């Protein structure tokens, strides 16, 4: 998301929209590094259920150029499910294996092989459908989608055509604070189950290609959104929220780099008062959320410019590729009308019939979803930026929840999590569950600082120990004798000691070099082995110096 700023500006042609008003480069929102800047207050109002054009939903950031045009964006997302085995056979479903090692007659499409449904796929589909507030089809079926390509072993893909397992629904998204913030609701058209195709590896010189069928038969959920997004940022956030959601639910690792989350985007523009939709262009090869953002913004400008020049007819229904290098979309292939996939019901598989009990059990097992969590954190008084960061990763949020359950102050807990703990995790490339610190101890640490047992500085040191090696706050305090020194008499002793050891500097201070206070403070702190209460230390020091 961040890189939309500087990169985009250099390369975009002149006619594009003015620069968004940022004063500093902000970190990519979804890594755990927050500044402690307070974000502007975000409206708590829920938006109206998605309507295309009205009023309060108008994006207030980047696309001021679109005064007289409106962009209509829809997204198709494919999510690879993290089942143990593939959708229709018992081959292992794991990424990164040697080519053609996770295959069998079924997923290879050998003569005589038959698909048998992996029931986990249904469970995950229902889970996602419920989380997206969709209406489930209690009686759905599979269909064959037929086309020829070397990565499609059977010459057809088992999918769902006219009766998807879930229809309708919506997802609520909080836009990042630095990009204007706001809450949006985007509609979902449908969710259906299907199998993935294999992978083609093309030789560098283009003379041959090789087929790897490890991925053939991996279960996918295809999520089609309503065309509710209006800007690249909205689209990217929708994608990010889907990623968050599938990770929360545990149905997929939602990893764009591995291909377990893939987004294709459809973009069209139309003059503001025109009811008819403009020609839709599909964009593929989007490998990150920021690419989604940039590609859409580019495509919108491309189309708007063609409109402005009276060449709207040059916008044709086609598939374009996003080129990361040149930062533009280019024609991949023109769609000659709609492809005919000759759908018909898959005769080798039975109907998928859900029972109320099955669905209810899954509904009961749903975790607290990101949206609900964010609202709960807002109510705790955290600022929006922190809310978004904390709620992004379910494991971090759960750690936070456990910490405040032990009585820790939410704001302080947030600060520790988002700064020191996050930095450690990033540095050592570990997850919160691999960190040795426990929520109980974090709460204990916070409390110990709050009640003055230890100073903040000591607290930070203890934290490193806890993160890396575990243990208890109490234990470490005892072991290293870190209790804060609050006794003025003791501190006075140390002040005297330091001052008498540094007569020259005392003279200089009294002569006007008041900055030396910091020097003395540092020496006294050293003398106290970091345990002196800073406030008290400076108070006594000043008294002595100014005596």
């Amino acid at each position, binding site marked *: 998301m961040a890189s939309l700023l500087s990169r985009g500006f250099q390369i975009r042609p002149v006619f594009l929209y003015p620069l968004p008003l940022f004063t500093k480069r902000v970190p990519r929102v979804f890594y755990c590094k927050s500044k402690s800047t307070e974000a502007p207050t975000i409206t708590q109002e829920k938006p109206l259920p998605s309507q295309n054009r009205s009023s309060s939903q108008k994006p207030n950031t980047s696309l001021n150029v679109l005064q007289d045009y409106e962009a209509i964006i829809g997204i198709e997302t494919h999510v690879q499910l993290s089942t143990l085995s593939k959708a229709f056979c018992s081959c292992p479903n794991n990424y990164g294996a040697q080519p053609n090692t996770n295959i069998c*007659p079924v997923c290879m499409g050998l003569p005589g092989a038959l698909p048998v449904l992996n029931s986990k796929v249904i469970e995950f589909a229902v889970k996602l459908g419920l989380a997206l507030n969709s209406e489930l089809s209690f009686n759905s079926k599979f269909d064959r989608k037929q086309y020829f390509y*070397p990565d499609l072993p059977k*010459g057809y893909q088992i999918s769902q055509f006219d009766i998807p397992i879930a229809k309708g629904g919506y997802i609520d998204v909080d836009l990042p604070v630095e990009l204007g913030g706001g809450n949006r609701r985007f509609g979902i058209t449908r969710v259906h189950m299907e199998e993935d195709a294999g992978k083609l590896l093309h030789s560098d010189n283009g003379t041959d290609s090789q087929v790897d069928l490890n991925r053939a038969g991996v279960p996918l959920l295809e999520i089609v959104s309503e065309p509710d997004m209006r800007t690249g940022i909205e689209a990217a956030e929708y994608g990010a929220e889907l990623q968050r959601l599938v990770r929360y639910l545990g149905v997929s690792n939602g990893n764009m780099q591995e291909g377990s989350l893939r987004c294709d985007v459809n973009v069209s523009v139309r003059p503001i008062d025109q009811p008819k939709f403009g020609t839709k262009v599909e964009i593929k090869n989007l490998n990150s959320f920021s690419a989604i953002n940039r590609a859409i913004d580019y495509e919108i400008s491309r189309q708007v410019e063609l409109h402005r020049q009276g060449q709207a007819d040059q916008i044709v229904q086609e598939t374009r590729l996003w080129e990361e290098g040149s930062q533009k979309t280019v024609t991949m292939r023109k769609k000659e009308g709609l492809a005919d996939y000759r*759908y018909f019901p898959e005769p080798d598989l039975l109907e998928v019939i859900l029972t109320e009990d099955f669905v209810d059990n899954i509904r009961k097992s749903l975790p607290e979803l990101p949206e609900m969590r964010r609202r709960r954190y807002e109510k705790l008084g955290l600022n929006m930026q922190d809310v978004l960061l904390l709620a992004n990763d379910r494991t971090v949020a759960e750690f936070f929840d456990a910490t405040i359950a032990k009585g820790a102050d939410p704001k302080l807990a947030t600060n520790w999590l988002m700064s020191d703990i996050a930095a450690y995790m990033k540095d050592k490339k570990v997850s919160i569950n691999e960190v040795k610190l426990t929520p109980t101890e974090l709460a204990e640490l916070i409390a110990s600082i709050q009640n003055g047992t230890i100073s903040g500085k000591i607290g930070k040191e203890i934290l490193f120990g806890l993160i890396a090696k575990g243990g208890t706050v109490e234990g470490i305090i005892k072991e290293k004798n870190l209790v804060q020194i609050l006794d003025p008499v003791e501190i006075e002793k140390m002040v005297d000691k330091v001052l008498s050891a540094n007569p020259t500097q005392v003279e200089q201070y009294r002569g006007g070099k008041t900055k030396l206070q910091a020097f003395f403070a540092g020496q006294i702190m050293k003398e106290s082995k970091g345990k002196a209460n800073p406030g008290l230390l400076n108070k006594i020091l000043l008294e002595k110096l100014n005596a």
Partner: protein
Amino acid sequence: METTAGSRVLEGWRPPGDATAVRRVRERGGIVVGKTNCDEFGMGSSTENSAFQVTANPWDESRVPGGSSGGSAAAVSARQCMVSLGSDTGGSVRQPASFCGVVGIKPTYGRVSRYGLVAYASSLDVIGCFASSVADAGILIHAISGHDRLDATSSKQEVPDFTSQFMPSDSFESKPLKGLRVGVIRETLGDGVDQAVISSINAAAAHLEDLGCSLAEVSLPSFSLGLPAYYVLAISEASSNLSRYDGIRYGNQVLANELGALYGDSRAKGFGDEVKMRILMGTYALSAGYYDAYYKRAQQVRTMVKNDFKAALIEHDFLISPAAPSAAYKIGEKKNDPLAMYAGDIMTVNVNLAGLPALVVPCGFVEGGSSPLPVGLQMIGSAFSEDKLLKVGHVFEQTLKDFNFVPPLVADSRAS
């Protein structure tokens, strides 16, 4: 073992394992002695569509053995093996059984696992058995029946033990089939059926009456609709099932410089004419704008056929008809007239549409060849009633005294 499905696209291909049915045969001590010829991918009714050779009918080597499982029927008929497996999508086990004078059984759809059966039409295909006696057919079909987790369409219905019901004929009562109600399908004994065949069937019906059955004529109003519906469904599913033969992963590949040519040439050179024709027609039937008019419509007709059978099988314990409108015809006689060839399936396709079990038992002869040509009686039961059909067939066969269903060439070679 090399498995070609009668096609050049799979010439030399060896599958990595046994089909479930074959595995079960082996597990129970069966010895697989070889593979037999068939029409390419099961598409045909005479075995003349095999890419490799035409199989001759043991009763008259200038005639076809029937198809598509003609090779399996001929092998049993010529006593080259005791029993054999075949597949029946529109009659491909029953019609050759009739042409070759052997027993053929088509089980209920879902009774035998299709895993390992090279698919022709997924909602119609079943694996069936040939034998020279009903008891042998029963033993084999029992061995391969039962739920298979590798086939989602295989039925969980219990398989009763129907191997121990084949009593010797001297233990029969005087009217062993007393009380059984037999329905004679009116639409199968009229126009388009050889008079000699009709006579054979009527004689067989009379024999059943002697055994105690009560006969009545029954009409299946949708009968004639079954043939076009069957062909639309079968070719549509076939066009899809045969898409995997692209030369990329297995089978014959014709090298080319460009993907479309590789696919096109591999398939064009690999498939025979009948298969190509059916793939083209099936693709057409499923294409946008035609699905409703053809495939969907055919499925609706299928439901009508199913319902007619269901109603008839409430009034009757089983239904009878010929297995083919004629006896074996000469090789080459119908090869260039596909529609005439298709028309020969009229007796058998409706049973596949309804998914019901059927047993064909040799019941008589007609004149016409260098020697008399056998005719089979088809008996159709309600779903999962293989045990009852086999019991009736066994009694029928064991009490049918005047016929010898060993082909002359076999009898001669035994005599010499």
